[in-house]
């Protein structure tokens, strides 16, 4: 769906290049998360993929064609939810969606259906200026979906949303994947990336050399160890066991039979740990 090869880009008057040899592929129907510190070039990568930035080095293909070669009809097939709200504040939510729907040339989705999907149906006739930041962000997502796009670019899609609404948004992102949509997402929220992304790439110093599934990354960067906490007379005790031959580890088996076990979990890394390990040395 998206193929970026040896991409480089430097903003005018910038001392260093934002992208320096970035290569990645986003496959059809997958949710790909591009992660990285602030200013690492995540939004720049998305903008190049959307055809909003020219004068980049390398090769960028979207829908199998060079970015920019499809003219403006390209935008009938993509949806973009920016990091900040991009809405007409004096119009209502419904008026906004009807306006944006009219700007596309193909069939569009029912605005009320989209508002309902994101829990905004009761606010359909409310002016956007009266919306909270979280509501605006959800309406932003509705706007991005109005043309029923094949490819979605989501930039920090749950910014400003409370945990319940953020979960609603994440569920919708997964539902979109089930409908066959391809989603290219950027986020700072590692838990979110872990939860929704099929694969993630870490963008550091203009390159994404580490790309894998969240599960593989957590395993690769964690310890193959099981941590067990037990109830002791005065305090809890912590025991760690190597995962290799765990079934034959007598101390572990004794603990299992003792009935004193409180908690037990493997010490694979979280995506936060991987992020810090990979990008931690980079100044924002």
């Amino acid at each position, binding site marked *: 769906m998206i193929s970026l090869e040896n991409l480089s880009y430097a903003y005018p008057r910038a001392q260093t290049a934002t992208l320096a040899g970035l290569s990645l592929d986003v496959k059809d129907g997958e949710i790909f998360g591009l992660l990285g510190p602030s200013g690492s070039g995540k939004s720049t990568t998305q903008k190049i993929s959307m055809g*909003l930035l020219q004068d980049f080095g390398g090769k960028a293909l979207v829908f199998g064609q060079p970015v920019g070669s499809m003219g*403006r009809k390209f*935008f009938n097939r*993509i949806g973009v939810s920016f990091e900040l709200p*991009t*809405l007409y504040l004096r*119009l209502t939510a419904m008026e906004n969606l009807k306006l944006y729907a*009219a*700007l596309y040339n193909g069939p569009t989705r029912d605005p009320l259906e989209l508002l309902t999907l994101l829990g905004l149906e009761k606010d359909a006739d409310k002016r956007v200026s009266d919306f909270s930041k979280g509501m605006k962000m959800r309406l932003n997502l509705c706007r991005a979906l109005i043309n029923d796009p094949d490819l979605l670019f989501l930039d920090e899609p749950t910014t400003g949303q409370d945990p319940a609404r953020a979960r609603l948004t994440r569920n919708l992102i997964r539902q979109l994947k089930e409908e066959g949509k391809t989603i290219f997402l950027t986020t700072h929220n590692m838990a979110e990336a872990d939860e929704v992304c099929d694969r993630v790439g870490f963008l550091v110093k203009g390159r994404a050399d580490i790309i894998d599934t969240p599960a593989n990354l957590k395993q690769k960067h964690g310890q193959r160890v099981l941590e067990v906490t037990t109830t002791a007379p005065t305090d809890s005790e912590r025991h760690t066991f190597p995962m290799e031959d765990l079934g034959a580890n007598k101390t572990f088996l004794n603990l299992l039979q003792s009935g004193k076990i409180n908690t037990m979990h493997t010490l694979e890394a979280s995506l936060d740990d991987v992020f810090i390990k990979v990008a931690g040395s980079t100044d924002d």
Partner: protein
Amino acid sequence: MSTFLVLQPTQLWMLLRADAISIVREPVLLVNLFIGLTLPILLTTFRSEIDAYTASTIGIDSFSAYAVSFALIIPAILVGWVTGMLLLEDRDDGPLLALEVTPVGKGGFILYRSFTLALIAFAATLFSAHLLLPEKPGLHLPLAFLISLESVLISFTLVAIASNKVEGMALSKILNMLALAPLLALFDAPWRYFFGVVPGFWIGEMLYQVDSKISLSVFLIALVVHLGVLLMLYRVLIRRLG
């Protein structure tokens, strides 16, 4: 007319509708439009009273004759200001970014705004000219055309210079002074052409220096100056809009 070829009728209607709603829901914009469009009517209706008053107070006999250029150009300036403010809002609040990722695009949208503005200003000026200059019918169309460009100039200047809506409001006071630019042509000496770089000067030149029979050369110079300044501002505007 390319914008109307780029946009389908439904798209054009929805954009016009959204702009109309935005203006109606913002009293400042609405009041400015209202003032702009009523000024020529007021000047026409109370012409003799105004002349009598200014003659007795400041000693100018036919004040309304000088005020004609102001009343003629002010509707276009205010419509241009309202459009410029809408564009500033579109930039600051984000819709312009969202429009960039639709088939219409930022360029298509700016074209829509410019053409719509020019059409409204053209119609408003034609109407004003009909009221204020019944004795010079030959000037109505060329003046309406030039003043419609003037309105686009105002909106582009606002977006090219102002960094935000607050600056846009402040800048409007300076831009309103441009309504006085045609009066520069009243100086009956060759050095007045130093003011020729100011587009509004040529409106005055057509009004005050050319007889009712239109001078094609003056109109062509006015057109070149207007288009030149417009092109320059368009380049700055595109840079400012990212």
